[in-house]
């Protein structure tokens, strides 16, 4: 239980830093750098927190951590692909980095 709250505090700090970076950075590419912070470290620690919160597993409560791990794998696969697509479309429109 304590480890779950420790991980969720780290995750909320990373989410807040990512949103702060969206307000303070001047360009598209630097905002992409800030967006990747939320996509990787914020959601990894959020999913770890859910796994440690439901730790004595029985037949009912194992349904949530399995879905959380599946969502984590989906986001880790599709997050860099979406960031690359945004950067490629911005570069083709002539926005100078």
């Amino acid at each position, binding site marked *: 239980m304590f480890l779950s*709250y420790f991980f*969720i505090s780290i*995750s*909320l700090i990373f*989410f*807040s830093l*990512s*949103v702060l970076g*969206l*307000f303070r950075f001047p360009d*598209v590419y630097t*905002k*992409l750098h800030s*967006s990747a912070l*939320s*996509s990787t470290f*914020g*959601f990894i620690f*959020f999913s770890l927190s*859910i796994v440690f*919160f439901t730790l004595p597993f029985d037949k009912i409560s194992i*349904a*949530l951590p399995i*879905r*959380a791990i*599946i*969502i984590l794998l*989906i*986001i880790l696969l*599709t997050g860099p*692909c*979406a*960031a690359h*697509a*945004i950067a*490629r*479309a*911005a570069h*083709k*429109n*002539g*926005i100078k980095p």
Partner: protein
Amino acid sequence: MWQIIALILLILIVLTLLRVFMSKNIFEKLVALDVANILVISLLLAFSIISRQSFLADMAIAYALLSFIGVLYVTKYYKNYSAQ
């Protein structure tokens, strides 16, 4: 405890959507929408823990797949758009 986490995530989503509507360039709006999608997925998982029902986690899986496809098609639509 998880109610406070859901409240903080709601405040972050409102700030990110305010960034979406206030920005001028179309790609900066798209980056802010990409962050808002991940925050909405986290909020769905937090609601799934609060209400002790696991169908909200299934909706989070569907939302993750559909948000990726949505971002990909918006970038494909604005490929030849001359920005400013």
